[in-house]
């Protein structure tokens, strides 16, 4: 799922009271959406929030290396037929290990399942879609507004709030945590 940029721009214009586009151009708003998305996803991956994860199939050819996806920020895990690979410092990587240098991953030739933290690609104009789950829309809007208003402190505050909300998003079976909560469980 992705959010249409035109919808974000519409809500930003509404909040900025500039529906006619007299004061601010579309470009300015699209730029602040890009800033918001990269700030939010940078922070989410720093804090290991699973909501910022993506999965891809990685094919390492016989050369022993392959380019990483272009929205790659940091690795979560890479799994082959024989289980999870562990990082190594040696090249060429031996069976069961991998190494990442810049935007290239080295491992023994095979198909792997790569789970990684991503940052959404930049959007360019109103026809594009921002590669972010729909549930993030309100956060992206608020962070964009804060960035547009040149208020990075407020933006960070909203990012923090968003990280907390999303931190346990993928976990089910949380029952009533009771009046005191320790690491999401009951005392």
């Amino acid at each position: 799922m992705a959010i249409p940029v035109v919808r974000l721009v519409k809500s930003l214009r509404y909040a900025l009271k500039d529906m006619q586009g007299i004061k601010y151009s579309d470009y300015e708003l699209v730029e602040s959406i890009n800033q918001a998305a990269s700030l939010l996803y940078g922070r989410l991956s720093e804090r290991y929030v699973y909501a910022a994860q993506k999965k891809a199939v990685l094919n390492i050819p016989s050369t022993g290396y392959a380019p990483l996806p272009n929205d790659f920020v940091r690795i979560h895990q890479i799994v082959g037929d024989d289980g999870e690979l562990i990082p190594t410092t040696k090249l060429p990587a031996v069976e069961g290990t991998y190494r990442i240098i810049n935007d290239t991953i080295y491992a023994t030739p095979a198909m792997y399942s790569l789970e990684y933290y991503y940052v959404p690609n930049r959007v360019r104009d109103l026809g594009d879609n921002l590669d972010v789950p729909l549930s993030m829309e309100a956060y992206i809007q608020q962070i964009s507004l804060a960035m547009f208003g040149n208020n990075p402190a407020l933006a960070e505050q909203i990012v923090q709030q968003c990280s907390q909300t999303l931190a346990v998003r993928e976990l089910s079976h949380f029952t009533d945590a009771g009046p005191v909560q320790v690491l999401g469980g009951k005392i």
Partner: protein
Amino acid sequence: MTPAQMVAMVRRFISDEQATGFSTGGNMEQPEGTQELLTYLDRAVDDYSKRQAALGDVRLLKTITGSSGTMLPPDFLMLCGTVPVSVEGRVLRYYDDEGTMPYMPVRYFARLPYVTDYGDTQNIPYQRDQEMSICALAAIYALNKHEFNVSQDLMLLGYGAVNNANAEQ
């Protein structure tokens, strides 16, 4: 309204329906009479457009989708918001980091077309309020030529008082 009708309205504003003050005729070489009034109308179009653009009148908005090297349109007044282009002389240059087409359209405030761009019987696409303001402004220019005091007329149009030439700065 046609240019002839615009001139007639200016004449009504300056009480010159009989064309005694500004005679009929005249040409660009000898700008007097009707030709002179047309010049005042064009000047009024200029001033009115700039003023309305500064106030953010959406009726003056236009869009260009050009590329680097595109000439600014002749009716260009100013850009609307911050857009990723720079203007050198009258040539547009895009800051195009990704290098892909199409370029994002650029919105700008455009000057209204000049009265003299139209033939005598052609309809000028002004709205009624624009016709009135432009004619009133042109009438002020015409009255000013005869050194009437037009400061009150300007104030009525919302143009503020004209400084007395001898006033202390």
